[in-house]
């Protein structure tokens, strides 16, 4: 499923850029640690819930709050403008420049100005000077910011020195403190001579008509102080209702953005401040203060029933900082003007669906960012919604479209999977760990397999095997419906068999209702309609009173049954059934943990019928599957259950919760990225010195097992069900 060649080329260029990889990699490693330190003693969940609630209130009432904000500013003598798009902003600024015969405009950081390419449009009117160090550097070479907070993070100090040398017309050494001093001297003259100061704003408080800037360099203060005219660009989504709400933002924004308890400067401006007459004084006069409230897609965003949630964004950029894909390719690939997860959403509204197409495609749907967002935005879910909207305008290429649509033709879909077993058997050989792998593929398909081995499909799918399995239920407690999912059904039916045996020992009979794909692949490829069809095909078989639980051993399927079916079937006559299924659905490891805890708190298995010699101690590490950890919030349970097995020495690997790179169709769409993520995962697994890596997702298992096989590793990858069953 190739994505277009332009994006591919950008991805490959970024992946082979050592400066970018070094800078982003180092930052990605350090940020979570320093962020955690600065949040010590603060209840992040409580804080972000308060922020989300304050922002939600604003979103519901933003027009009235904008009016109140404007009225308060006007009372103080400020001039307030409304701009519906970039053209309006250019016109307003040109008028202001003309009225003051302005030659130079100093700018402190404003993402709105980047979004509308302001410098480009105003350059014939007056000299536009960026004063934020990073912004100034990229302005010299006409580049766009690659990060919302650190715009020049993609440049090395050597490259910066070249840029300084060219801009200042003399040789500048790659010495960071020297470059900072040169920037201070150079820009100081601009500050003293500028006619207009232009600023972005982090918060706009309706109650008092206050604009707030969080800055570190001090350029925001100088921009607001030195020139006789000051213009603020304010996006509607920056509104806050009450003055005291600022305390919430002050607590979260610097911590989440730069891991600081507070930025060096927080500046609150509520009206035209004092300045020196004709820039030098000594007479003191009041400034001319202009405030431009910018729409440019924001009204549409804030009134969209789904995407208004993105209005809770504080622009901290922590979703970029923790994103495993952003860390590999940076904001020029994973971004348009705004980068990363939130960038793919904002771009769809502030720019266009077309411009966000490449951006949103970069998301691997691991869900990590949502756990860090101080605005409590479910970014990964919104990206899937965005993908769905983009795909309605820009359909998938022919082959991908065929695959997605095959999902809803269940007969054809099952037929295809069955044929895969004899087709893959032709190319399969046994690996070191006893599993069968495809060793070579014809017709150029090798690209899919040459960085990690793919499993051969089973000759008998699980749906056939369960019919002949003899279930020995110990002290029967009830009945569980098993949703197998395509990977277990056709590639790893032995995991299904292990699950049956483990649950039998817990007192549950396992039934395998007639089923087809869960629909998740369609959702991740941007086709909610196909997902809805598939959910409908499954729902009647699972929405039955006789089942005490519905279980899946694939967390991606579990998320589909638990959350996505409810979403896609909302408003249909299957809605009630979807809710019934959701309420009973659990992932395998969570169910085992619950059942064992119910039995009296002992997680240790009572019926020791394991097939391997448990007298031998084994070292086991655990990989957190993204959808289990980030979506379903199951992190401790597998560890507790594994540690309770007396023959297991549990070892925590580094970065256990970092995506392995599988990502479903992602590893076929962008194998270059998947491969890099897998490389890092394998390194962490090997370094843990474990003999076995346990996982709860058959997708991760396929990826990790294939990677271990490819590098001839002695480590065995197993599904937790197999490990608990003891038969492997």
């Amino acid at each position: 499923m190739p994505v277009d060649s332009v994006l591919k080329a950008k991805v490959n260029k970024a992946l082979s850029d050592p400066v970018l990889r070094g800078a982003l990699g180092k930052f990605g490693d350090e940020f979570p640690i320093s962020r955690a330190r600065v949040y010590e003693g603060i209840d992040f969940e409580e804080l972000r819930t308060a922020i989300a609630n304050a922002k939600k209130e604003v979103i519901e009432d933003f027009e009235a709050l904008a009016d109140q904000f404007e009225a308060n500013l006007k009372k103080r003598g400020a001039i307030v403008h409304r701009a519906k798009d970039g053209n309006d902003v250019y016109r307003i600024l040109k008028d202001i420049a003309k009225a003051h015969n302005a030659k130079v405009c100093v700018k402190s950081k404003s993402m709105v100005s980047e979004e509308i390419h302001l410098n480009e449009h105003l350059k014939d009117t007056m000299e536009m000077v960026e004063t934020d160090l990073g912004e100034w550097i990229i302005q010299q070479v006409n580049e766009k910011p690659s990060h919302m907070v650190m715009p020049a993070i993609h440049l090395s100090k050597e490259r910066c020195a070249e840029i300084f040398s060219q801009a200042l017309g003399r040789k500048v050494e790659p010495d960071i403190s020297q470059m900072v001093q040169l920037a201070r001297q150079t820009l100081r003259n601009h500050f003293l001579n500028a006619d207009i100061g232009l600023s972005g704003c982090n918060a706009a408080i309706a109650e008092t008509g206050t604009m707030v800037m969080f800055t570190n360099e001090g350029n925001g203060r100088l921009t607001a102080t030195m020139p006789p005219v000051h213009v603020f660009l304010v996006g509607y989504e920056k509104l806050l209702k009450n003055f005291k709400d600022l305390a919430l933002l002050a607590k979260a924004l610097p911590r989440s953005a730069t891991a600081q308890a507070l930025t060096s400067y927080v500046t609150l401006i509520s009206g035209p401040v004092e300045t020196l007459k004709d820039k030098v004084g000594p007479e003191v006069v009041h400034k001319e203060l202009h405030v431009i409230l910018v729409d440019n897609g924001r009204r549409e965003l804030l009134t969209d029933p789904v995407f208004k949630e993105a209005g809770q964004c504080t622009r901290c950029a922590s979703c970029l900082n923790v994103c495993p894909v952003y860390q590999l390719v940076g904001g020029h690939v994973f971004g348009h003007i705004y980068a990363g997860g939130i960038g793919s959403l904002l771009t769809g509204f502030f720019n266009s669906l077309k411009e966000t197409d490449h951006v949103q495609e970069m998301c691997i749907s691991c869900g990590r960012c949502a756990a860090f967002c101080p605005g409590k935005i479910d970014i990964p879910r919104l990206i899937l919604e965005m993908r769905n909207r983009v795909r309605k305008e820009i359909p998938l290429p022919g082959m991908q479209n065929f695959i997605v649509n095959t999902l809803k033709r269940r007969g054809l879909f099952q037929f295809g999977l069955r044929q895969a077993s004899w087709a893959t058997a032709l190319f399969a050989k046994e690996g070191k760990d006893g599993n069968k792998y495809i060793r070579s593929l014809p017709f150029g398909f090798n690209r899919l397999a040459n960085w990690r081995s793919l499993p051969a499909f089973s000759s008998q799918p699980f749906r056939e095997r369960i019919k002949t399995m003899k279930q020995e239920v110990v002290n029967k407690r009830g009945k569980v419906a098993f949703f197998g999912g395509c990977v277990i059904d056709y590639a790893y039916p032995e995991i299904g068999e292990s699950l049956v045996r483990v649950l039998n020992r817990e007192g549950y009979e396992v039934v395998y209702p007639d089923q087809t794909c869960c629909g998740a692949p369609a959702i991740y490829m941007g086709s909610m309609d196909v997902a809805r069809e598939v959910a409908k095909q499954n729902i009647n078989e699972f929405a039955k009173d006789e089942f005490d639980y519905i279980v899946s051993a694939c967390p991606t399927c579990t998320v589909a049954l638990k959350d996505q079916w409810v979403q896609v079937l909302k408003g249909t006559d299957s809605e009630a059934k979807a809710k019934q299924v959701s309420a009973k659905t659990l992932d395998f490891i969570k169910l085992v943990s619950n059942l064992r805890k119910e039995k009296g708190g002992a997680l240790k298995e009572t019926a020791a019928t394991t097939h391997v010699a448990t007298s031998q101690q084994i070292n086991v590490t655990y990989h957190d599957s993204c959808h289990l950890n980030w979506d379903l919030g199951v992190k401790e349970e597998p560890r507790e259950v594994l540690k309770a097995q007396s023959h297991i020495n549990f070892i925590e690997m580094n970065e256990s919760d970092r995506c392995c790179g599988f990502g479903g169709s992602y590893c076929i769409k962008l194998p270059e990225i998947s491969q890099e993520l897998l490389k890092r995962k394998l390194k962490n697994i090997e370094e843990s010195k474990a003999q076995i890596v346990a996982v709860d997702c058959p997708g991760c298992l396929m990826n990790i097992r294939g990677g271990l096989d490819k590098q001839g590793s002695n480590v065995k990858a197993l599904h937790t069900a197999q490990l608990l069953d003891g038969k492997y």
Partner: protein
Amino acid sequence: MLTKTVDWLPYLPQGLDKEKLYQIFKEKAEAVPVKVIRAKDKAEAEDSIVQEMKVAGIKNAVGVPMDLVDIEAIKEKAKAAGITVSSELNRDIIEKAEFGISEFDLGIADTGTIVQDADSIHKRLVSMLPPIHLAVIPTKAIVETFLDSLEVIQKAYKGNPSNYIAYITGPSRTADIERVLTIGVHGPATLIVVCVD
């Protein structure tokens, strides 16, 4: 007569533990880093200010009229050490000065922050342009949190805050090149806070 338009002191939260808050303020500010000095009275504060100018080895300083210390007394004391202190509102003198002195209204213990009604252009220039900035604050005006400071401001201005309120936490900084923390970009590279009892 006060040099301020609005006095914040009557609006501080009741029952502040002055000593405890000062200790937290000092610890947090020093981590940023800020040099924190405590003076028991006006004379001691003025002496500390002159001492800091001598330590910095500067020749030209600027300051604004203040309540906690007497700028005229500072001028006299500095003169003996060969240091010129100007309190003239002259942009070019302030821009060339090596040391700026101003008074802030409040401290925040949690983050080691100082807060000021900065509508006055004079106050802003002396705290922004010179490479060293020294701020005096009343020790008793250290509150615990950012939220506390907003509440003081809300009350002091009866819901209509001054046109410019400045929060400063440490020196001017950047990490824009290779994420290396570098002190002293557009604002002062050194911040000293003298808490006057």
